């Protein structure tokens, strides 16, 4: 390699460098000659929209993907990281965005995979394995994860923690984390940042991606911004608006649109003393044109509440009213019939049928209207879907492309569009902006306010307290399955929401 800057070496060289890295998937250029470097002892954030190339870069640095062109250098020397194992040998460890845990194996088996303690005849000693896992978890201040339990039975946040712990125990020199906080609550994020600060104080190099600006500025020493597969520069000091402008290539005046005016309208959805697994005695009223936020730490019953309002989780008591009359919702079909829509966090397993086309996914809820004698009329399907793609600015090559080809934010929009097509009046949004880039977030916010303006009612849960504070007319904070506080606009702050949520709350870590 004769190109590129002269090879530096010794203690002054960056811990890890990517030089003019390129990588294409099919026809899409995910990385186009991006360069990047990070030093020892620093926490380095990579920011950019979804599809800007951050994850691809992380995968290349972590040995999970090979670059089409360019090179990776460690401490100044070029290295071939052609497998995760090769990266591990160089002390480079990655917490990937998509979890790499094995669901039907125990936490201990996952934590110690390929490093299992051996007993007689070199067979794996399971009792010792559980004990070692116990010690590892306790040593990192985690008490509510049982190493003998199956990963499948853990919450998303707990799984993410196991994923992080698994890498931390390897004592990495260079730690790569791809959106490690997207499924964590505030306490868990603090725990993670504690670990990160500790590592950086021990002269390790930490590189992470996040869409939450506050976290980035909290913990990162330097920030590199990516757009369209290339880097736009590395900053030690940059304000959010400037960063967003760089990331999106356009001016986003205000991330949060103004709340629509709220009139004294009739209630559209009411819950009275709703009980069920994880939900105890929740009452709420959602009015026409209202955006009602629900906040609180992960695992405090929001999910159960949303799913029971949609008929996808059981209730054991209480009643639900739609349009001021009592209704029975025992499955999602009932809910859809009553004009209730749910957009869940895990769009992959709970909302979209990934291998099927964008068009089919869009029109799934209105198939009966589009069908004649049970046969779907293709033309109608296409027209309805096409309208929505334009309206919501869904970036897809075409209606016939399978949904899994779209980026996360656009998948989320497909799901939203499905319910708009179905003319649902009550829209339940469950953490829809998690892991979604800032520009798409802005579009989703715009969409939420326009839904409210049209006279629909929006109930939304978010793990991002800022979002709740800026968009909601009112915020209900849940703690241990109950409504612990109600905050009303104007004057809601993220701090209010968080402090109402953490009061006496338990968490996975600590």
């Amino acid at each position, binding site marked *: 390699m004769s190109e590129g800057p002269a090879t530096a070496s010794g203690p002054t060289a960056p811990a890890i460098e990517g030089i003019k890295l390129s990588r294409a998937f099919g026809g899409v250029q995910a990385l186009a000659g991006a360069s990047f470097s990070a030093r020892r002892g620093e926490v380095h954030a990579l920011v950019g929209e979804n599809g800007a190339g951050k994850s691809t870069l992380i995968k290349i640095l972590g040995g*999970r993907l090979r670059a089409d062109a360019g090179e990776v250098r460690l401490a100044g020397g070029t290295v071939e990281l052609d*497998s*995760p*194992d090769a990266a*591990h040998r160089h002390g480079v460890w990655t917490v*990937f965005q*998509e*979890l*790499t*845990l*094995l*669901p*039907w*194996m*125990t936490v201990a*088996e996952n934590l110690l*995979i*390929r490093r*299992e303690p051996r007993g007689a*005849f*070199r*067979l*794996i000693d*399971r009792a010792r394995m559980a004990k070692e896992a116990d010690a590892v978890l*306790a040593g990192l201040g985690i*008490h*509510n994860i*049982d190493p*003998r*339990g*199956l990963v499948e*039975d853990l919450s998303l946040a707990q799984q993410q923690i196991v994923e992080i712990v698994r890498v931390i125990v390897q004592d990495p020199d260079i730690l790569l984390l791809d959106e490690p906080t997207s499924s964590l609550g505030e306490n868990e994020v603090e725990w993670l940042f504690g670990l990160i600060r500790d590592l950086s104080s021990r002269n390790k190099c930490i590189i992470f991606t996040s869409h939450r600006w506050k976290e980035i500025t909290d913990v990162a020493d330097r920030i590199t911004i990516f757009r369209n597969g290339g880097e736009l520069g590395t900053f030690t000091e940059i304000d959010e608006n400037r960063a967003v402008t760089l990331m999106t290539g356009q001016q986003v005046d205000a991330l949060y649109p103004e709340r629509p005016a709220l009139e004294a309208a009739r209630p559209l959805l009411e819950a009275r003393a709703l009980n069920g697994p994880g939900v105890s005695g929740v009452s709420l009223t959602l009015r026409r044109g209202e955006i009602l936020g629900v906040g609180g730490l992960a695992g405090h019953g929001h999910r159960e509440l949303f799913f029971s309002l949609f008929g996808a989780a059981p209730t054991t008591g209480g009643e639900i009213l739609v349009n001021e009359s009592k209704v029975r919702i025992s499955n999602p079909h009932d809910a859809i019939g009553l004009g209730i829509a749910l957009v869940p966090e895990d769009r992959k397993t709970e909302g979209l049928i990934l291998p099927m086309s964008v068009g089919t996914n869009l029109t799934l809820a209105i198939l009966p209207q589009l069908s004649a004698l049970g046969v779907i009329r293709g033309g109608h399907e296409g027209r309805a879907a096409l309208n929505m793609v334009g309206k919501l600015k869904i970036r897809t090559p075409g209606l016939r492309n399978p949904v899994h080809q779209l980026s996360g934010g656009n998948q989320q929009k497909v799901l939203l569009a499905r319910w708009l097509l179905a003319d649902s009046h009550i829209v339940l949004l469950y953490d829809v902006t998690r892991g979604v880039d800032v520009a798409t977030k802005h579009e989703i916010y715009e969409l939420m306010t326009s839904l409210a303006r049209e006279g629909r009612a929006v109930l939304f849960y978010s793990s991002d307290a800022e979002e709740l504070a800026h968009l909601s007319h009112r915020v209900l904070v849940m703690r241990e399955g109950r409504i612990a506080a109600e905050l009303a606009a104007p004057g809601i702050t993220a701090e209010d929401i968080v402090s109402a949520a953490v009061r006496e709350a*338990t968490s996975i870590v600590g």
Partner: protein
Amino acid sequence: MSAEAAIERRRTRRLTHFLAQNVGLVLALAMLVMAVVLYGAAYWIEQTALPGMFELTSTVNNTMALVLCGMGQAFVVVTRGLDLSVGGVMDLANALAAVHIKDSVGSMVGWSLAILAIGALLGLVNGLLVAVGRLQPILVTLATLSIYQGLAIRVLPQPGGSIPPVYSSVLVNPNWPTALVYVLVVALIWYAFRRSSLGVSIFALGNDEQAARANGIDTVRAQIAAFTLSGLMSAAAGLFLAATATAGDATTGNGFTLSSIVAVVLGGMNLFGGRGSGVGVIAGAFVTTMIVNILFFSNIDPLYQSFYEGLFLVIAVVLGALISRLMRRRSR
């Protein structure tokens, strides 16, 4: 919650964890107990006596082939695959044994090892086609099933040949249930497999191929190994079949492809891979044999035997699914 309380709660949950994680195994064992009781009852009604050593011996001897090929099938099912060539490998092993195994110790040991090696090789071919050729396991093994059956017919066109009596009495002693030792050996093989790197790799592959690879596991190697083990176990099953029949028939293995799957299912293994116990499969194999025995003593017309077998299978699967769902919900 304090750390001490958390640890205490964890202890009490350990048993629930074990039960929840091994629902399939527990159910398979429970089913075996039920089958034995039913069999005893049917036998008593018919003979006004309890089954004794002779019945135990013949049951164990008759089940050995299914235990072995069921275990082979289990290795593949864990990877989320299916090996339909099990019966073909058994046919070929059976035919080779009947033609070649002669009365000398050298011939018996030598040919047994050779046949096991051939079985492993046939499994290896399946594994290479599936893992390296990236083909569907069902397609590959459906094709190799026919090929292996064809080879078996080629080796032994007509039923015949012979198995030395000594060979038969070592593998399936008609007077004593010595074959129980082999059942124990098969269980130990599973125990060791589950605690080996290979076991971890094969189970990880069945859990999630992508995640397994991200953990640095060579999934191609694991898949090839699973099919090779299946071929090896099926060849051993073929040898037992020959020993039981004391002669060879190149078609007797055919039915075992399906019954090996039945044993795996009754053994509580998940056909979607990554979950299940080989010990359960052993129990499943015995339950399969016991059902036939129970039907025999219940004076059910042999014409309807497969009808009742199927009925029993459906009931067992439905009940198993219901109970395991309940238990898992409890443990959460």
